[in-house]
């Protein structure tokens, strides 16, 4: 076929750059407004349709807030140190099996916080695995504990959020490899090299610390399981015991001020980092460990064993027997089904919302927009659930039966949505402008362009976001507790009710079941893609 004889293809539309208020931006604004409207509503004064206050707790417990800040800040610093060490081992070295290690290191985050804390308690708490197997070591360890379990809570919070720090700092370290790491290895002493690297990734370190602070301060499951009187428990008391919604929201204000500001500050901390990849990146330079690989691998194994394997073994140990575990599973069949479909629905909605908003925000580099999309990360699930409860109480006071689990799914989607948005924004910004321009010039309409160019490029991030939203929904207890309709409880709620006064083997069995449900999509993702889940 003579190419000169081929007629040109007619194009009806002009290649036009995206600018201004187009359908995409309107959709993004609409989705954001829909998901966050209940939060805005939450501070409205209660009308006659609102629930009646039974008792009002006076004042704001400032001392508890200060203590909570101190505990969480310490946990944040610890998480950053642990995460940086993990990231350095996995990103900068040639340690074998890095993808596997990275996926296993993610387990504390993807596991429901309540289950994680319970596992730590079963392992390191009174009467736990450590005490039974190594009483002398356990007594030595317990000497460092405090009666209110602040240290234990701090350590567990650090362990839960260290994987996030690992991912954020790992991304910064990955950039180092193309920013002079080999030159640093040639010219600098080892200590100078460490200082150089630390300076080069200071933005990521700041972002990781702020994220852990925002998430840790609002975490309810860990302090609740460990019986540590942190601020989230104060809010829960007001909500659950006194139904003092307005009081709970007022008490939540100082907490929210810190968490939302911390989450928004992440955008500022990362304002100058760019990850656009127009060209395939050259193979990264890695530090050759040689025989030290055994040492590094050993340390990794010890850390993961201490934080993940042993607590899991402790949970399994508390299950008493396979038969007893199966009985627990069969008794919880209805809750398992509820959990699965609610989590699936929530992750789908969160993913779609994240794609809409993230695609639009990711087109530009505006710190303000980034801060707005990051800020919802700092809203604790308890506050989110309460906001949705108040919103739907106000608009549907007698009609709950009609909407069923709709509000619950929406609230859980709102919880996972900031993560999916963040991932999509990062994916969108990795798309080089030239790729977009080439696609615009090539001519096919925006739908075809999305389907063949933009969509595939953000697909794996979208799937990762859906997985994160799924595991968050599986482990959620705060929102479920507030918004579940009668008889539509979830596994996490069931565990919550058996947590302290039910038979231990039931709580352990439910924990194991939740762990399996939350870990399954992560494992499937790893098997399919041979890479660890990217969360941030």
């Amino acid at each position, binding site marked *: 076929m003579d190419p000169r004889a081929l007629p040109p293809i007619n194009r009806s539309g002009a290649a036009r750059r995206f600018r201004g208020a187009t359908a995409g931006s309107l959709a993004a604004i609409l989705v954001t407004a829909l998901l966050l409207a209940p939060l805005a509503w939450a501070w409205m004064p209660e009308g006659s349709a609102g629930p009646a206050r039974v008792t009002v707790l006076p004042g704001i417990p400032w001392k508890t807030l200060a203590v909570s800040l101190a505990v969480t800040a310490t946990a944040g610093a610890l998480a950053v140190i642990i995460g940086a060490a993990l990231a350095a081992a996995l990103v900068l070295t040639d340690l074998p099996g890095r993808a596997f290690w990275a996926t296993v290191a993610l387990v504390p985050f993807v596991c429901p916080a309540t289950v994680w804390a319970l596992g730590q308690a079963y392992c390191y708490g009174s009467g736990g695995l450590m005490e039974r197997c190594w009483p002398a070591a356990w007594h030595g360890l317990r000497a460092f504990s405090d009666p209110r379990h602040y240290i234990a809570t701090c350590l567990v919070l650090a362990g839960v959020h260290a994987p996030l720090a690992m991912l954020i700092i790992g991304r910064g370290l990955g950039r180092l490899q193309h920013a002079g790491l080999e030159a640093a290895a040639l010219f600098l002493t080892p200590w100078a090299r460490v200082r150089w690297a630390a300076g080069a990734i200071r933005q990521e370190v700041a972002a990781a610390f702020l994220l852990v602070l925002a998430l840790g301060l609002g975490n309810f499951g860990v302090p609740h399981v460990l019986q540590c009187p942190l601020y989230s428990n104060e809010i829960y*008391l007001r909500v659950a015991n006194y139904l003092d919604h307005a009081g709970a929201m007022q008490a939540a204000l100082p907490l929210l001020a810190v968490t939302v500001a911390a989450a928004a500050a992440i955008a500022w901390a990362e304002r100058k980092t760019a990850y656009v990849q127009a060209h395939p990146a050259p193979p990264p330079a890695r530090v050759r460990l040689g025989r030290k690989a055994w040492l590094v691998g050993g340390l990794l194994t010890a850390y993961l064993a201490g934080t993940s394997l042993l607590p899991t073994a402790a949970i399994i140990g508390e299950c008493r027997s396979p038969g007893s575990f199966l009985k627990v599973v069969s008794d919880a069949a209805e809750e398992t089904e509820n959990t699965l479909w609610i989590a699936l629905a929530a992750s*789908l909605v969160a993913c779609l919302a994240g794609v809409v908003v993230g695609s639009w925000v990711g087109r530009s580099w505006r710190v303000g927009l980034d801060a707005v999309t990051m800020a919802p990360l700092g809203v604790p699930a308890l506050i989110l659930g309460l906001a949705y409860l108040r919103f739907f109480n106000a608009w549907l006071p007698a009609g709950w039966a009609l909407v069923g689990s709709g509000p619950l799914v929406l609230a859980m989607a709102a919880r996972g949505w900031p993560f999916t948005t963040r991932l999509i924004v990062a994916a969108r910004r990795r798309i080089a402008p030239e790729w977009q321009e080439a696609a615009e010039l090539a001519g096919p309409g925006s739908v075809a362009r999305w389907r063949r160019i933009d969509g595939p490029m953000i697909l794996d991030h979208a*799937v990762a976001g859906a997985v994160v939203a799924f595991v968050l929904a599986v482990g959620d207890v705060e929102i479920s507790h507030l918004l579940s309709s009668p*008889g539509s409880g979830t596994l996490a709620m069931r565990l*919550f009710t058996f947590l302290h006064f039910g038979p231990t083997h039931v709580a352990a069995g439910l924990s194991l079941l939740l762990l399996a449900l939350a870990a399954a999509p992560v494992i499937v993702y790893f098997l399919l893609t041979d890479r660890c889940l990217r969360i941030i």
Partner: protein
Amino acid sequence: MSAWCIRIRPAVAAAAVIGLVCWSGCTRHAGPEVVVYVAVDRGQSEPILREFEAQTGILARAVYDAEAAKTTGLVTRLVAEEAAPRCDVFWNNELVQTLMLADRGILERFEPSAAADLPAEFRDTAGYWTGIASRARVIVYNTRHVAADEVPRSIFELAEPKWKGKVAVANPQYGTTRTHVAALFAALGRQRACEFLRRLLENEVRIVDGNAMVKNLVARAHPDASPIYLGLTDTDDVLSGQADGEPVSMVYPDQDTFGTLVVPSTVCLIRGASHPAAARRLIEYLAGADVERRLASGRAGFIPLRAATPAGRAIDQLGRPRAMKLTSRELLEQLEPSSQWTREHFHP
């Protein structure tokens, strides 16, 4: 970019997920149902509700409250939903807050025929509530670290210096502990009760979230790390622990003086219930001797209200307790004043 991202057909995958979600969400129960708020431990109540479902075909949509809040959380929810109740039946694990609900007009009269053989003190004369099995307040102790003859026989002994820092109680703002404090206010008078509570606080009593937590702490006591050897809790918590092989036992306090608090579980019908017929059937079922027998012989070892119903082995051995002589009205009157005092003085 992963190969699987290219190979997989996003539309098919999305359709499969959406289909699964819709199918799961759409398979809802279409028959009769009743909504019941349950403050009784889920481990004991759930099998009974399942049995009810199996016998009657009525789906029991239960709401179980969480640990710390327990009864108080459900009660406040009932109060808040007064104008548009979602609940049909409230199965409480104590009495005082049921009385409070009746006082506020949230309950509806219903006297189940199955409760006709109950002693009169365990049925409301006005017909707003019916007692089921009961529990008693006890002193729990760790059998490994406390000899049987050392165990305090009165709650006042818990404030003695020898037990400093070794006693735990549940948060007195909720549950049976709240009722117990109200009962002490009624039985001893405000001054004496406050004095006892103050001495308990000075004795570094540990305050935890629930009665089960008290039992857990006592069961796991260790001289070096966690020397909580005694606690105030309920019979069902101790018996559950014993069933799990934990080193705990119990005594009824103050049997020679004013007795101990015996707390009947109660069941009541909510005014304006959406499923009144199903609700009445459930109350009839729960108030029957069969349920009482199951609760008594179950893991939690509830104390039967009917003399004819045999108690569980553990209660049989210990004997039935001597109860405080208090009327429900006296208890109710002291509920708010005692709660206010504990709110001001007890900080977990």
